[in-house]
């Protein structure tokens, strides 16, 4: 079980969190034309990197905040976490 540092609450066990997927995905702006390929890329396609990965987590059984984590998908090492409006200090 991972130990994740919520930027608001501190270190907590993984079972308080839910995983929120790739943290690099940007939703296309509302009301803008977008071709089918770009839209499908946004909705369906995700990279599956081995190694460092920026991802979203939700402190669902805690403060209910979404935040970013930089995690190694192979070793599970978490290099840093930060609030949504921050950047990693690494």
């Amino acid at each position, binding site marked *: 079980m991972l130990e994740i540092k919520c930027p608001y609450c501190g270190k907590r066990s993984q079972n308080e969190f839910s995983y*929120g997927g790739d943290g690099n995905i940007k939703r296309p702006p*509302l009301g803008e034309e977008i071709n089918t390929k770009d839209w499908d890329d946004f909705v369906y396609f995700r990279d599956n990197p081995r190694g460092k990965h920026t991802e979203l987590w939700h402190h669902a059984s805690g403060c209910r*905040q979404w935040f970013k984590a930089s995690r190694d998908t192979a070793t599970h090492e978490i290099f840093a976490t930060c609030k949504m409006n921050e950047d990693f200090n690494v």
Partner: protein
Amino acid sequence: MSNQFRTTNSSGLINKNKIINFSFNGESLQGYEGDTLASALIANGVHLVGRSFKYHRPRGFLGAGVEEPNAMVQLHEGNRSEPNIMATEVELVEGLVANSQNCWPSVKFDIGEINNLLNRFFPAGFYYKTFMWPKSFWYKIYEPVIRKAAGMGIAPLNPDPDRYEHNYEHCDVLVVGSGPSGLASALAAAKNGAKVILAEDKAHFGGSLLNDDVTIGNMSGREWASDVISQLKNLPNVIVKNRSQVFGYYDHNMTVMFERVSDHIENPNKYTPRQRLHYIRAGEVIVSTGSIERPISFGNNDRPGILLASAAREYMKIYETLVGKKPIIFTNNDTAYSTALEFLKNNITPIILDTRNGSDGELVKEVQNLGVDIKFNSGIANTKGHLKIKSATIGKLDKEKENFISYEEVDCDCICMSGGWTPTVHLSSQAGNKLKFKEEIDAYIPDQKRQKETAIGAANGSYTLDQSLAEGFQVGFELSNKFTSNNSKTDTPSSKEPSFESHERLWCMPLPEGKKPKRFIDFQNDVAVSDVELALREGFRSIEHVKRYTTLGMAGDQGKTSNLNGLQYVSKIEKKIVPEVGHTTFRPPYTPVTIGTIVGREVGNHYLPTRKSPVHHWHEENNAVFVAAGLWVRPRYYPRGSETMSDAVNREAANVRKNVGICDVTTLGKIDIKGPDAPEFLNRIYTNAWMKLPVGKARYGVMLREDGMVMDDGTTSRLSENHFHMTTTTAQAANVLSHLEYYLQVVWPELDVNVLSTTEQWAGIAVAGPKSRELLSKLFPSDDLSNEGLPFMGLIDTKLGNIPARIYRISFSGELAYEVNVESNYGLHLWKKIIEIGSDFGVQPYGTEALSTLRIEMGHVAGPELDGRTIPFDVGLNGMVSQKKDFIGKRSLSKDAFVAEDRQTIVGLVPVDKKSKIPEGSHIVENDKAPTPNPKLGHVSSSCWSVEYNNPFSIAIMKDGKKQIGKTLYAVSPVKDISIPVEVVSSHYVDPKGERVRS
């Protein structure tokens, strides 16, 4: 005569003044307090414990602890019965009942032993080779027969009556194992101020110090161990746990330990758990798990009475038990000589066979000085004795040690073997440590760590006491310094132990001339040298493949005594060095753990939380039959007298259509939405328009996922300019809240909106039916509930007496209906008031079944239609989709498949015979006689008995549905072997124009 195999000294850790009665295979036996089941059986001369897994060979004890592969028993009786328990790990307790397993009719005469005679028909990979064809035989013949023959003990059929608990701990330093290095590191870390947990699997602390004659400082090893333990127990920053096995090492230094809390207590307190699972998140883990002795492979080396030399010593030293009176000691190293010395202390002179040419070790010299003849260059070729070892064929080895050059038959009643030692690296390996091979000890030790884990002492391949203590004190101090600023170092005491010469690289004896007895490597899985040879001959090269093909190192003991001997043998045949062969992966659990411990208190209703509405008690009192709706418990229907479920449901639903009914809808998700950007936010979340919703009005809304599928629906009301009250379905409440939070926090943080779940804060009661207005007018006499005063989709803030209340004019049933909300604590009061006042109007409560009936008749979609595979068009909600604005998922709706001409749509189905109920999940086909694969047009999502028309009615989602209306098709359910001719109709079966809700 009982206990005839006891030593005369009393240097052990048992209490001979307290007799413990137990039974084994129906025979009443006696042991002493402090015995294990194993030591008590051996003291009574019982070595035959069970039968082996594959060949049903008679087996006894190999070890004295967690390494035991053979002596597994069925423990206890009835619902407490437990299979495959290592007798070496069971502390003797009054009244203990144990039985042999894997044998019939008895352990002494076992029919299954025929497998042993037929062993040449059961080579490695037998199952893989034999049961491949004919394929059809697998389910009916092979599998049932194999299942019957497989396995060891028997699992009980009824629930476990014992109590198990979970506990969460955090510490700076976790020390696993209380041998010399573990004690040293725990003491050093604790005295430096770190928060320390020390875990010991056995009842007694001290590990090898309990068995070895050594001196630390001016104390004996045992005295030093108990001195350190009492020091640790007096420190407030230390938790010391015996009977506790750390069996798993997971990510981020999460370790799992199970504690046998009351297994050893005769009458534990009622609420004392039997076992406890500790989740320990440790800053640093010190792996001081010691080492396990290795057996030697020789002909018939598995007979009862043949065991590890270290185990024989432990039985003598701790349990004052003699494993035999005519022992042979067979070794390739010095450590077995301490077992010889222990026998000599008991006036028993062992025969000693040493494969080596000689040794100058202090223990060897000591034995020689006592006048014992040591047979160097010697080994065991074969043994005799069916149920217990009787004699051994020993012999001189040639120079290459590949053949015997002479043979001699000697009588014996036990053989104590030692093939050297294997560091217990399991936990380090589980932690991701890449092991390295250490030539001097011919074994793997931890090397490159991935987590905060440090192996010390014998687990690190440091076999001398000096090294172990030095590593322990050093590592304990260094690691604790990460957590404290005391920088207080504990001095390492001096120590004294005999010197040791190195072992010989020989773990497999040659076969006796002209014979081919089995030479076992893995006792638990009956894997012999010949099986490994066969696997290699058949081309298996990877050690992982050899493991799986032969089952070497699998099952309960996880190869604790067999892994390295297997590797060594593969490397010898393949002419590779061991590191090139590699090693298999160690996985948790290190030792078997009861399922009860893993589950803990989360059994039965404790598996998940139970959510109940504030009206729940009333429902119970009024004969409600309940149904689980997610975590919620909801009334399904309220049977009266001898009513069946369908009687009750039809009555409840019909009463809503005719008079008025009330339904507890507290479970609906409720979300408070506030902020200046709330209308804009709703406009993006929902498919329809929200900017112009007036204050005091509710609106039905549909929200999608980005892929265009309907996520949820519900009504949302505008309470004030910047304040909305959203409702969700019961099932999706939690998901919708996370969804809203995601978009507010991650995607559109610029929106000034806050969301908060208020599901628990409001009790909700639906009042539905043509008489609902009259009823509520009487309940709220000062409010204008007329069609003008409170029109459809309107809401008012009012009071029920002094209690704040909200009345929404919304309808799920399709009738004139309201939903009244009050604070949760007043829910029961409101419900009772409505029932009381409503008696004049024929009010009846209705449950979830009638609720479904009412909405299905009206063609209102719910969970079964909004199943994550439908877009708004599919479920008749395309009118809800705004063409003017963008919203979540909108772009997906224009994808080709979603705008296809023959896209699926929602329809109604009525059986042609007006009688047959259509099972939910049935497939719709054009021709029920067509050969398979019969093209499927759609599926039945919801079914009910229409109380309006008094015949069955269903909703289906069907390809090109609207064009099918009027046709007769078939609803087929192959699993129920049903085919029902159905007429396709509109999904709006009752009141298609929706006049009633507006009346």
